[in-house]
C-alpha cells in the first residue's frame, strides 16, 4: 500500500474588494498591485481587472488610497472585525 499525500484548499473571505466597473487595470494601470506591501494583489487574466490573490492583508490601505479611480475598498479582515 502506498500512502498518497493530498492537499486541501481552505475557503477564505477576502477583505480587499475591487469595483470592476471603475478598475482600469485592463488599460494598463497597476497602482494597487505596485503599492501593496505584502504583494497580495494581481490582475485576473480573464477580466483584466485587479483582484486580491492572497489572504495576508494588513488592512493598511495604500491600495485604496492610491487608486486613481476609487475602485478599491479595504475592509477589516473577518477574523478581526
Amino acid at each position, binding site marked *: 500500500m502506498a500512502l498518497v*499525500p493530498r*492537499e486541501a484548499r481552505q475557503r477564505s473571505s477576502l477583505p480587499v474588494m475591487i469595483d470592476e466597473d471603475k478598475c482600469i487595470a485592463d488599460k494598463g494601470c497597476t497602482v494597487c498591485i*505596485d*503599492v*501593496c*506591501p*505584502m*504583494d497580495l494583489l494581481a490582475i485576473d487574466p480573464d477580466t483584466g481587472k485587479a483582484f486580491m*490573490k*492572497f489572504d*495576508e*492583508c*494588513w*488592512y*493598511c*490601505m*495604500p491600495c485604496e*488610497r*492610491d487608486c486613481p479611480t476609487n475602485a478599491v475598498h*479595504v*475592509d*477589516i*479582515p473577518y*477574523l*478581526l*472585525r
Partner: protein
Amino acid sequence: MQTHELEYDIVVVGGGTAGPMAAVKAKQRDPNLRVLLIDKAHVKRSGAISMGMDGLNNAIIPGHATPEQYTKEITVANDGIVNQATIYAYARHSFTTIEELDRWGVKFEKDHTGDYAVRKVHHMGAYVLPMPEGHDVKKVLYRQLKRARVEITNRVVATRLLNGPNGEIAGVMGFDCRTADFYVIRAKAVILCCGAAGRLGLPASGYLMGTYENPTNAGDGYAMAYHAGAELANLECFQINPLIKDYNGPACAYVTGPLGGYTANGKGERFIECDYWSGQMMWEFYQELQSGNGPVFLKLDHLAEETIQTIETILHTNERPSRGRFHARRGNDYRSRMIEMHISEIGLCSGHSASGVWVDEHARTSVQGLYAAGDMAAVPHNYMLGAFTYGWFAGEDAAAHVAGRALPALDASQIEHERARIFAPLSREHGLPPAQVEYKLRRFVNDYLQPPKVTRRMEIGLQRFAEIREDIERLGAADPHELMRAAEVAAILDCAEMAARASLYRTESRWGLYHHRVDFPERNEEEWFCHAHLKKDASGRMTSFKKPVEPYVVPVDESERGAYSRLRVARTSQPVAA
C-alpha cells in the same frame, strides 16, 4: 529563473524609513557613488510608515528639551542598560533631522508663533511633536530618492549577506518574489534597514498577518546580521505594546494624551501616571488587564466634541487609518464608549524597546562594512525620528568607508549554498505549506516565550523550535510568492531561537514586563548591570555573553533612577472628603 549579478558601492536593504535617508545621505556625501536601494515591497509604500505617521515621539527641540535631558530620560526608562553614546548622538542630531524633513516637505504641527508645538507624554520631559498631516512622509522620501539619483529595485527579498575573506561584508543575496530570479549583489558596504522582527509572536486574534508591525518586517534583518557574524544586543528586552484589542494597532495615547485622553481600567479610572511605552508601563498595564479591575481601555468619552473631531481626523487618516473603519463596524464612538485595549504579541524592535543588532554611534555593526539603522538597530526607544537620524549616520559613514576601497573577493561556495537553500521549496512536491509552519512556530512563541517568562517553559520552547528547524527542510512553495513566505519562516525561526536563548541567559528580571522571569523575579544589579550580547560563534553555535555598560556621558542622579519604577497611580484606601 535568471541570476542577476550586480555591483554597487553601497547597497541599502529596506526602503521604509531609515533606508531612504541612508541612501540619500550617501549620495549627497559623494554623488559619484553607485548606491542601490532594494525593498521586498515597493519603496513608495513600504515599511512601518507605509501610510505616514501621526507624530514624532522623540523630538529634541531647542527651547523644549535638551539632548542631555533626553539621554537621561531614556537611560532611566531602560533601567540603566544603555550605551549612552548612541542615544546622545541621536539626541544631538534630532533637531537637524527635523529641520531637514521640514525642508523636504514633511508637515509638523506649529503654534501661532511658528514654533514647533511640542507636547509632553514622557514621564520627565517634553518630546512629542504631532504631525496631523503626516500622511505624505513616504511621498516626500520618494521625491528625495529620485532627486539624489538613488537606484531602486523593488520586490527583491534579501536573504543572506556575503562575507569577504576577512569576514567583512561583500554584498547581499536574495530573490524576486514575483519571478524567483536570484540576485547576487556585490557591495563594499551594506546598510540593513529591515525593520522589526514583527512576525515573532502570534496576535491574540490568531490571524497571522494581524501583527502590530507591518508584517513585511518579519525579522529578515536580524537573521541576516546574525548569520553574517554581527552581534545582537539585549534581545531579551522584548517589544510588547498596548493596542486596540483585535485590531492590534495603536489606539493611540501619544496623540490623545496631550489632548486629555488617558489609559483607564474597567472602572474608568486612571491607573498609570504616564502613558509613555516602557517595560514598567507595560507591567502595570498587564497587571491591570489580568486583575478584577480589567480590562484596560483608552478613555476619551469625557472630551469636548471639537477635541474628539481633531482626534478622529488625526487617527483615521495617518499611520493606521483603517482603525476608523474598525471602530465603525464595532459601533465604537470615542464620544460615548471607551476603546477596549489589549497587549500585543511579542516582537524584537529597538524602535520601541531595546532589542536589535548592536551598533555604535555611527550605525556601524560589529562586522566591517555592515551598518544597521531603524527598528532593527539597538538604539533604545529610537522611533521614526531615530530611524531617520541613524539612517543619516549610516549613509554618511558608509560613503566614507567605501572611498578608495575595492570590492571584497567573492566566495562561490557561499553563493551556491544560498541558491540551494532559497530555492529548495520550489522543487519539493507536497512540501509543508509555509503558512502552516509559520502558524505553529508563532503559536509556540506565544506558548513558551511570552512574558512572564518561566525557565522550564523556555527550554521546552527551544525543543519545539529545533523540531520546526527540521520542518524548514521540508517546506514547499507553489510559486515565488509562497517562496517569499518560506524564506520568512526561516528568519522567524532564527529570531525565535535568539529570543529564547537571550531570555534564558539573563537570569534576573528587568525592563518590567519585557523581561519578567517568574523564577528570577528580582533585579540583580551586581551580576546583571550589563548588556547581554548574542552572536554566532566560530563553530556556528548561538552564544551569549556579557558586555559592560559604557561609562555614562550624561550622569544620572540616584534620586532620578527610580522615576520609571513609580508609574502606578497612588490610591488612598479611604476616599478623601472634599
